[in-house]
């Protein structure tokens, strides 16, 4: 991972080349609260967790 991090330092997309990267479709986490609510539903019905954002508390016991 450190090698990749180091390699990434060589990668430079200049500000004037960021037109497409600035599109909401290209932005990670751009789906906000609606995605958080979906993650909450799925997390309560699967045994897995994480690597996709943080959700609220509660056990979903019932």
């Amino acid at each position, binding site marked *: 991972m450190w090698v990749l991090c180091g390699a990434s330092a060589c990668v430079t997309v200049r500000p004037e080349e960021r037109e497409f990267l600035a599109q909401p479709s*290209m932005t990670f986490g751009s789906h906000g609260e609606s995605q958080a609510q979906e993650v909450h539903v799925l997390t309560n019905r699967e045994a897995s967790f*994480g690597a996709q954002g943080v959700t609220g508390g*509660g056990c979903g016991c019932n």
Partner: protein
Amino acid sequence: MQLRWHTRIVGVLAAITITLSGVSTAGAQVSVDATTSYFRESGGGLKTQSITPSVTIEGTARDVVTLFAGWEADIVSGASVAVVDAPGSGVDAVTSATEWADQRHTATAGIGIQSERASLRGSYTYGTESDYRSHGFALTARAELFERNTTFEVSYGRGFDHVCNLLQADAQEPVDRQRLDTADGCFEGADNRAELPLDLHTVQGTWTQAWTSILATQLTLSGQVLNGYQANPYRSVWLGRAAAQEHHPENRVRYSAGLGARLWLAPLKGALQIYGRVYRDTWNVRSVTAELAYEQVVVSGLRFRLRGRYYDQTGASFFSDNYALFPRGQYFTGDRELSPMSSWVAGGRIEYDLPPGDDGNVGPFAGFALVAKFDWIKWNFDSFRYGSTPVPNDRGIIATLGLQARF
């Protein structure tokens, strides 16, 4: 009383919105996000449905200090099997499932400070439901490097939760414990109720990288340590001679790694979105998740997204579909989510940013967006049965509506 409580929350949020609107005229940026989801899972006599409204308000002053607050509720009802695999159950257990209803409320408040290339945010969340209480603290640090082509984010969350249970003597063996049949008396000091702690530590690191003008990736590593009561106090499992409240290990360590990529397809004016995740925990659950999506810009401000998701997991080491014949050591569970299972999700989303007028505003707002989303879910529980009856409620939908306003 509940209605008054809700009215008070809405009133407080409305007052904060009006205040922040006033503040926004003094140079601060304010945004409000109101989202509501409807979830329904049905089939046979078992079902669950929930309505999840949420409101989040965020204000940033002088591009340095951000204050945010939010409220979310889950209004849930359904029917579930109280004693899993009881003799003579099967269809009867499903058709005579226990009806239940509950509400969960969470309130969050936090503060952030940011410079041009770094930010630090802290928040506190309080959650309450009839049988559960939670206090959560989160701290997130973020830094942008290499002309903003690289972003690192690290977060730590600490949870102090309590689960209501039937008060049962410490000397009692797990196989003698009875399930909780109602939340009445929970967190009210009743003599026959106990409040069992659950401590959570959650760590997450994210690396987001722009590789070219049309390709970006995001790597996320998560870890979580849980210590405390992690079973469903309402559920019993048939063990051969009697039923006992399900009994899970008190310790669990969970790890996951996710990798996402986004590729802009210039001729189509759309983005291809790929996501994969692997997960493992000390209960020996392992899973993979794969998601493929395509997001299309229709016209400026209007875009839709189609996606498909596949999920597959192994069962927990102590899971058995029949503890009377095939026990798995000292632990036992009636939780279908701890069995080997898979699921499919297919859905779509449409988002519309209202176009600004000549003054650059959308009416009284600096910006206004509407979101509608729909997902269809199919679960496969091939290794889990209620007696001899397959899981009937193996289909679900999630429908979401939201609006985002900036002042």
